[in-house]
């Protein structure tokens, strides 16, 4: 029994000086990201054995699966916050396409500078996120349905507008001539290039004939991934707003009773997912130099899967941003691992579905353990 009820006059002698004396093990077991961490270890073990010399764990392979994980991870962090807040956003995938095309058309058709189109794309994201949030809190309809509408509206709008203006569905040559500008470098560039050059000079990684290392640095998406995850984790664990996120997802009515601005919290979380989708799009567009109306297809579900693997409950009120990071890492590792080991990539989807089911079962168990009267 975790709590002892004693006579009122008895001294609280059982209390440890630091206020908590639950064993370290109990506290670790209570973490929502535990399952995802275990899953990550398992995935690395499996591929460590099966993909030994296929190149998955070569420097190139690692940077590849990190990059795939990073892009999804940026989405998953915001989606995890929203899910903890008790809502879904199915429109994030379409939002990616919409934001890509906003940047693409802005540059190629309207001749705007890249930085301005990125600002405009984030402006749209705030408006669309707020619209999603307002619709959900004002109508009281499930966010699943409201944002499912958003999924089709945004994708259709993106396709229709792009095809009307350009006659095509892809927009190439966006960064042409600006490859070294700050805005392209900060979203689509590489970091730790000095470190990798040093690795090359030391002979730890192979060099090209011109003296540059074969892997020149890490994709900026990885830096953004870490940044966004750290921010989300900090908000959840350490801020008042984080406390409110757990509360609105756990029980909105109770939260309202004690003065939490439930609607504002939810609307902000929807703005968060739309902005994460736009960040995803910006990174992709400026990395590849082109935009595509079909960008982000199915990403909404992948992000939800990553968040669920990371310990988020579908019913809200529980979850972790760090867990979502591991969820995305599992996702990226398996996707690339299957590719490298030469297994038919069709099996990836089977694996994904299975992983999701296992994660949901584990989460349910964890939740029961967490709230069980002891």
């Amino acid at each position, binding site marked *: 029994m975790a709590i002892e009820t004693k006579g009122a006059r008895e001294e609280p002698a059982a209390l440890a000086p630091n206020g908590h*004396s639950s064993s370290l093990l109990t506290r670790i077991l209570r973490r929502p990201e535990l399952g995802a961490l275990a899953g990550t270890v398992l995935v690395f073990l499996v591929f460590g054995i099966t993909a030994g010399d296929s190149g998955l764990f070569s420097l190139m392979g690692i940077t590849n699966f990190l990059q795939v994980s990073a892009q999804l991870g940026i989405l998953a962090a915001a989606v995890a916050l929203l899910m903890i807040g008790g809502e879904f956003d199915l429109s994030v995938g379409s939002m990616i396409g919409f934001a890509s095309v906003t940047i693409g058309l802005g540059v190629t058709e309207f001749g705007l500078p890249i930085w301005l189109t990125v600002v405009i794309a984030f402006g749209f994201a705030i408006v669309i996120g707020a619209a999603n949030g307002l619709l959900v809190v004002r109508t009281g309809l499930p966010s699943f349905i409201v944002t499912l509408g958003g999924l089709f509206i945004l994708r259709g709008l993106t396709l229709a507008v792009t095809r009307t203006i350009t006659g095509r569905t892809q927009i190439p040559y966006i960064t042409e001539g600006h490859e070294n500008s700050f805005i392209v470098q900060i979203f689509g560039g590489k970091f730790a290039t000095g470190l990798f050059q040093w690795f090359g000079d030391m002979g730890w990684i192979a060099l090209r004939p011109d003296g540059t290392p074969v892997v020149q640095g890490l994709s900026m998406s990885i830096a953004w991934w870490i940044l966004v995850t750290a921010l989300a984790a900090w908000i959840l664990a350490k801020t008042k707003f984080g406390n409110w996120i757990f509360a609105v997802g756990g029980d909105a009515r109770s939260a309202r009773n*004690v003065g939490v601005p439930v609607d504002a919290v939810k609307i902000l979380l929807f703005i968060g997912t739309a902005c994460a989708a736009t960040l995803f799009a910006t990174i992709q567009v400026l990395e590849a130099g082109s935009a595509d109306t079909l960008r982000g297809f199915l990403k909404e579900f992948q992000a939800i899967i990553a968040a669920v693997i990371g310990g988020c409950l579908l019913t809200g009120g529980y979850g972790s941003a760090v867990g979502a990071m591991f969820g995305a890492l599992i996702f990226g590792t398996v996707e690339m691992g299957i590719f490298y080991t030469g297994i038919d990539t069709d099996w990836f989807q089977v694996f994904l579905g299975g992983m999701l089911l296992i994660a949901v079962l584990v989460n349910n168990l964890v939740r029961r353990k967490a709230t069980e009267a002891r």
Partner: protein
Amino acid sequence: MMATLDTSAIVELRNVTRRFGSVVALQDMSFAAYAGQVHCLLGDNGAGKSTLIKTLSGVHQPTEGEMLVDGHKVLFGSPREALDKGIATVFQDLSMIPLMSITRNFFLGREPTRGVFPFRRLDAKKADAIVAEELAKIGINLRDPQQAVGTLSGGERQCVAIARAVYHGARVLILDEPTSALGVHQASIVLRYVAQARARGLAVIFITHNIHHAYPVGDVFTLLNRGRSLGTFRKDQVSENEVLEMMAGRRDLQHLRAELDMVAGRRGAEGATQ
């Protein structure tokens, strides 16, 4: 029959009527809560208990009559305004989130923070220490304030909800059926805490339909029936049985008794013929 006290009431209703359309939920109700007193509000379902607490806690406004706090006329627009005057209501659902820790629940909506924006953050250490201290005061020794509220028993949960209201400055504590969902042992934990809150000088308004829980801890009893007060009685003026009979409606109970006797009689007769 009205119980009168010398000190002035913290919160008082004078001839309050509340109508919802043509339905009269409360009629000509007068009611007062004093510091250091447990005022039990008894009545069957639909007697108007719920409307009365919602009026006191600022959810509803009186259609007629007036409400006074510390002798001054007030009209609450929202529960928040009542809370600011120190009138806190612990609703039946407790307004607690089972999956969140005790500390997070305790300070939900009133989180202590430190640092300046954008680095303002929860003062978790301070919060944990306060929770441990406040709960130790009422005899609940936490092993870990970080454990989820869902791990607490019903009685402990109720106590945490009450402690939260008291800590955040309640002078009048309105408890909506705090023991109705609890077993005997759990209910006794809550009742002991109610007595403690009284000793600390709070005015407690204890809503219940269970006279066995209300009588031991109550000082004053107000009985409600169909939106009207049947009167307010001091403990030395009535016995537990009298209160029970008034609650059920004396006539109803007599009818029931007569009916039961008849059934018993008939069965006795059938038994004899066989």
